[in-house]
């Protein structure tokens, strides 16, 4: 059996010793998981290595860790694949040699011991923030609520979340703004917004749009989509929340999130590339009194843009867009004519040849009848 080198981040808060990396070797087949490797070490070498784990089948969500710098479940990451991963530029220099597997606790959450983080302090607190229970109107019916079948399939993707914390760990927005409600909790929020039995749809959307750390705090970095082991695609759920907030309820939030998104889309459509000066201006809507004030407040941001060369006087005054603009427009046309929800439970994954044409269009405002 081949040997694999595991480099594990150890930390025992009782010892007074700061966190450190420790090298281990495990002897296992390459198709076995990183968790199998850690458990072998715990069983044979050092019983004190701390990691939460239970089902070993990617359903309980206990063993979220960072492997080679990226959040994953240790139980569904194969040793051979982890060892073969190229060393990422973003990993701190000198930590990982090619062929090694680094395992460290998830990010954005305080470490309790070794690979165990405090999920309550961050993840569950954020989940509670979105009022995570169904709020139907009035008394329940005698029998079941009657709802369109596709709505239940639609929210199943959000229900598939196992609260492993991988998306929270690698969320870049949360790294900058720890108060950001975050990908997992917002996906949970969509589970209620998308559920026609819930009677607080507008209130939920208004709340999440007006919160400065709400749905407009996401920067589309796709990290959560990439690291989610269950295909929940939290960012997609956040975008659904935005669409519902704007298209169905026309919520003009105090954070200018809707205006910013609209300005962004229009600028790209027109120029094929971002015009930062115009983006700032259009996002705030300078012709509204409060917009002007907000624009003034954003002046330092604009000046920083100048200082770093993101905005140049030439670009600010004579922004001309890119060549091949007609192709950008074609993308827009295509997108506007194909407004279907991409849902794992309907379409399968990329590469699955599930009959895409059979996918039902998801009703944006499904009627509920009791």
């Amino acid at each position, binding site marked *: 059996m081949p040997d694999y080198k595991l480099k594990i981040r150890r930390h025992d808060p009782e010892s007074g010793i700061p966190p450190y990396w420790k090298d281990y070797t495990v002897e296992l087949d390459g198709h076995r998981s990183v968790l199998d490797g850690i458990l072998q070490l715990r069983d044979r070498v050092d*019983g004190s290595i701390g990691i*939460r784990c239970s*089902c070993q*089948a990617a359903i309980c969500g206990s063993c979220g860790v960072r492997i080679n710098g990226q959040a994953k479940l240790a139980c569904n990451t194969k040793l051979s694949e982890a060892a073969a991963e190229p060393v990422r530029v973003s990993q701190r220099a000198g930590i990982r040699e090619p062929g090694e597997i680094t395992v460290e606790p998830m990010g954005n959450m305080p470490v309790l011991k070794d690979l165990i983080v405090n999920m309550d302090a961050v993840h569950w607190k954020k989940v509670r923030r979105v009022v995570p229970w169904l709020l139907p109107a009035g008394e329940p019916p005698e029998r*079941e609520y009657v709802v369109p*079948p596709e709505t239940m399939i639609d929210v*199943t993707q959000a229900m598939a979340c196992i609260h492993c914390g991988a998306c929270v760990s690698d969320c870049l927005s949360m790294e900058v703004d720890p108060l950001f409600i975050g990908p997992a909790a917002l996906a949970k929020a969509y*589970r209620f917004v998308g559920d026609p039995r819930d009677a607080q749809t507008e209130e939920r959307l208004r709340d999440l749009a007006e919160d400065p750390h709400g749905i407009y705090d996401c920067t589309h970095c796709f990290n959560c989509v990439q690291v989610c082991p269950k295909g929940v695609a939290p960012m997609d759920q956040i975008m659904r929340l935005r669409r519902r907030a704007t298209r169905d309820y026309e919520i003009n939030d105090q954070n200018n999130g809707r205006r910013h998104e609209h300005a962004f889309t229009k600028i790209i459509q027109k120029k094929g590339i971002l015009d930062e000066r115009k983006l700032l201006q259009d996002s705030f809507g300078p012709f509204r009194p409060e917009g002007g004030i907000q624009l003034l407040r954003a002046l330092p941001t604009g000046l920083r843009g100048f200082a770093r060369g993101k905005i140049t006087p030439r670009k600010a005054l004579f922004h001309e867009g890119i060549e091949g603009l007609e192709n950008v427009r074609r993308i827009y046309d295509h997108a506007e004519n194909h407004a279907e929800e991409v849902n794992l439970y309907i379409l399968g994954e990329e590469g699955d040849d599930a009959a895409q044409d059979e996918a039902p269009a998801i009703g944006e405002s499904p009627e509920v009848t009791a």
Partner: protein
Amino acid sequence: MIGAGLAGQRAALSAAQAGASVGIISKVHPVRSHSNAAQGGINAALNPEDSWESRAFDTVKGSDYLGDQDAIEIMTREAPEELLHLEHMGVTFHRNEEGLLGTRAFGGASAARTYYVADITGQAILHVLYEQLMKHDEVYRYEEWFTTGLVLDESGHCAGAITRDIRDGSMELFKAQSVILATGGNGQCFKPTTNALICTGDGISMAYRIGAPLMDMEMIQYHPTTLAGNGLLITEGARGEGAHLYNALGERFMEKYAPNKMELASRDVVSRAEQTEINEGRGFPDGTVALDITVVPRKRIHEALREIVNVGRDFAGVDITREPIHIKPGNHYIMGGVKTDVNGQTEVPGLYAAGECACVSVHGGNRLGANSLLDTLVFGRRSGAHAAERAANMVLNPPSEVLLSEEERRLGSLVNRDRGTGRRVAELRNELGETLDRYCAVFRDAVGLNTALEIVTRLKEEYGSVAIDDRGTIFNQDLLGALELGYMLDCAETTLISAIHRTESRGAHFRTDFPERNDDEWLKHIDVTLDGDGKPHISYSPVTITQWQPEERKY
């Protein structure tokens, strides 16, 4: 409440609703509980044209007539109400074209009456119950607290539990008028198993140690479709959706064993059929047969079997939408457990049990698919309500604090013990698991079972000198692993003794040396109680029969 899976959370909510002050203690965060793994669904006769009697008969027949029919009646009659309650709380059950609750077919059932959420039914229900726990903040949650033992008051009533806060190692004596165990099964006694690492029989063992009888402990379910090697589960929903089983010769072998129900015969029947094919040389070289899901339309697989697409891809390297997957019978569930009445009461006053750790007995010799979720919910709710009523009508007789300091000393000596020549916890655990899977699986006989019991007896001795590496207080999982092994050894011993004792074949308990069912002698439960010398003592209790007399079982 000890345990926060479906039974525990359901019991906590119903006790709180009845006005009790409730604390719920769980060694893992509630959403990590193994109820998550229940993929297929929940059985209920909800449609007007369906009847609870038909459901009850399926369950009685599935149990090989060892199930108590009064309890089965309660479970099947209360199922529709329980299902609707879940739906009203927010479970996103699959709908039919009319927007009503839709069903799928399941094993051993005479009609399609299994309600489901894709193939994450257990997870969906578990998460919705947790939503309700977050909403009902009056239920105190002790998440990541490990229970080390139950305590009795001077009159022999269960009056609380001793726990260790996993995060800081502090110990606490919880005092309560009623204690409900909902700690799940003990599949980790077997290797491989579909069960999670946390399924170590904690509650079964703790109840046994304070004198509660265990019942039907020999009845261990081997699920027909698990992956070879790691034992991961492929839901019965796959066969419910139409998947077929083939041997290595390409024969759809269930024709021989269950010509009417084919792949949807009850689990004991299908597992025995597979094992017979494998034993007689018609399996694949890796000791498996094939499950062909490709006959299910791809769109349906994506919508209804998403999770096992993942399991196939991630853990077997197989795309189940394109090719058959190799499977074999694997340890899955214990029908037995702490003996209770229909309100969850054990024979120790004040102590209740619900869910997999309990034996009411609704599953008898073999549990039907999609009956475990139902069991947890119906009897979880009933236990919670009854325990609340008991608590309201009595004054707490607090257990002695001395018990806490004694327990602290016991754990302290384990943590600080020198290894000396003692074996590692993992070695003992692996030997235990391999022993039970070898001798106490689909086919059993006296020689094998006695061999296994000798090994387990030796392992119990060796357990006395087991030592651990971790001397810390924060997340000392090493210590917890050692305590769990102690629980597992109790479960293994009582299972083997019961299996040796039952000299007939019934349900999941098939004795090659006694291949027939013997109603004259064995239409009764085997109870095991810890006697004064610390040895297991066997007694019997009758099977309750209401309207279905035992008859030959054919599918």
